[in-house]
């Protein structure tokens, strides 16, 4: 182990491992969005804002009302799942047959709405849970437990969704609808119900992501803008609706940000990631794992 560490720069290794941990969280973020896109064929531009509301939810449940953590987390997940349900019911459903770009813009309206709702309701102060998780030290490297926990929970969430999609009847129906949304209604499938279930699952994943993010970062009404765009880029890079592609893209992006941040400022990590995205769009417009037609 010591010899291994000597070959590699310790900081480089730390950045790579941090990148992998970050990748887990990004992959979870991308999963919910991909699910919505793959099944309903709609992009929730306001996805990161749902997460922001979830972060406030956990903050209020845990830090303000003193709900114990083991109860606050499920409550938060349910809260955002309900929001996802409402979003579909109130905004997406009337627009299902509209031009895709109108759906995009309407969820853009939801983004504005949630952001300013948070500003009005919670104020613009930065808030945090006030828990400091210890730092894990391996050799000269330091990782926060919060990140490790987030990584593990993200992987757990993804496995749960995978099992749901492949092992249950509803999951199978959802996958079928993603393959052909016009035939399924003819087969007697209630698409409306499946869309609502999918929206709730997408929201629930956002809620889980919110619980993990609020452990590491302060929450404020505009926090969504700091990770929202990156989530979209990951989904597009992986191919919208392509779960495995999104997974790979999340880890790629996380490495670029992490390593870019190691050699320079964090912003340059993001600039690199965005530039990489644009170049990749030209090389593989249908996503990383798509076969070229």
């Amino acid at each position, binding site marked *: 182990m010591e010899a291994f560490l000597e070959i590699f720069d310790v900081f480089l290794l730390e950045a790579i491992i941090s990148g992998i941990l970050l990748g887990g969280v990004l992959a979870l973020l991308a999963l919910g969005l991909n699910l919505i896109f793959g099944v309903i064929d709609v992009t929730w531009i306001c996805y990161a804002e749902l997460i922001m509301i979830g972060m406030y939810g956990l903050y209020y449940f845990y830090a303000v009302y003193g709900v114990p953590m083991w109860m606050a987390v499920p409550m938060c997940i349910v809260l955002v799942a309900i929001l996802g349900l409402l979003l579909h019911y109130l905004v997406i459903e009337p627009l299902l047959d509209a031009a895709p770009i109108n759906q*995009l813009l*309407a969820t*853009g309206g939801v983004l*504005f709405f949630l952001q300013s709702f948070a500003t009005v309701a919670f104020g613009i102060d930065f808030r945090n849970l006030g828990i400091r998780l210890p730092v894990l030290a391996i050799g000269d490297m330091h990782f926060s437990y919060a990140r490790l926990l987030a990584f593990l929970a993200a992987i757990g969430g993804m496995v749960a969704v995978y099992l749901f999609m492949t092992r249950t009847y509803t999951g199978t129906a959802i996958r079928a609808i993603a393959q052909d949304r016009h035939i399924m209604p003819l087969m007697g499938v209630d698409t409306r119900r499946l869309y609502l279930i999918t929206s709730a699952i997408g929201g629930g994943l956002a809620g889980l992501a919110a619980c993990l993010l609020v452990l590491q970062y302060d929450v404020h009404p505009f926090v969504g803008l700091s990770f929202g765009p990156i989530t979209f880029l990951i989904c597009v890079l992986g191919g919208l609706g392509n779960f495995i592609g999104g997974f790979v893209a999340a880890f790629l992006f996380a490495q670029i940000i992490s390593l870019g941040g190691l050699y320079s400022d964090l912003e340059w990590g993001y600039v690199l990631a965005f530039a990489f*995205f644009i170049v990749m769009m*030209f090389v593989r417009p249908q996503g990383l794992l798509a076969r070229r037609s």
Partner: protein
Amino acid sequence: MNPRNPALWLVAAALVALPFVYRQPYHLHVMVLILIWSFAYTSWSMMGRFGLVSLGHGGFMGVGAYTTALLWNHFGVSPWIGIPVALVAAGALALIVAWPCFRFRITGHYFALVTLALSGIVLQVITATRDQTGGSLGYTPERTKGSALAALQFVDKETWYLIALGVWAAGLAIWYLVDRSMLRDALEAISEDEDAAAAAGINVTAEKLKITVLSALMTALAGAIYCQYQMFISPDTVSGIAVSLQMVFAAVVGGIYVAFGPTVGAIITILLAEILRIGFGTKAVGWDNLVYGVLLIVFIIFLPKGILGSLLERLKSPSKH
């Protein structure tokens, strides 16, 4: 929008005469803001109305504003030269991003998201080069010690009102010219069906590029004018995804398919923000966007052609409604 219509010229004359008669500085300030943003929203709609939904216009605006200000502060280059340089920079950026997009037929959602990355990049670059640009704290062009004209810095609102009016009118004139050109026919055909348009002999990539670069140039000009007027810019007010969305939002509310639609959108959004700000002070923080968000959703669901667009349609064919 027929230039031979006498009513149009009357309205134009009234708008030009306004600052000579009415000099309330705050009202003039609001009007200047409305005119500058109307121009920016019109620029966005130039391509938005052909189904090219760009979320990268915040990036073009940021390039316009920051290039002009940086050239002035660091090299003493007058905005008269700085603005053309900024336009070239924004145009080049548009070419670099849009050409491959159109060449590889990235459309719809994907185009919106690629351009979203572009606004993200511009915002992050401005923030990252904080030694030169002041980062997220914002940036102020230095006050000139010499000629106000050479530095394009005027203290009085009347001058700015006339400049903004001129730029806004130029924007509408460009809209009118595009509306009457072959470019419009080509782009309408493309927005209906790209393959059919290509089969009919339209060079899809070239036509889309023309309108995109034009739109980017106008947006960069709006950014530069905004910077010269406000004498303060920050990454959040002239670049980034929030600004891009703001443009889309205002344009959609006003109506993106009619020339005055984006202007109506700007009037509504800016007046709303100002009224809320004055009426409720700091308590109103967030309320304007809350109302915007709800309006945007309601509009897209019930009035996808925007306020002005739906109104004009209703006037033209009342029987259909």
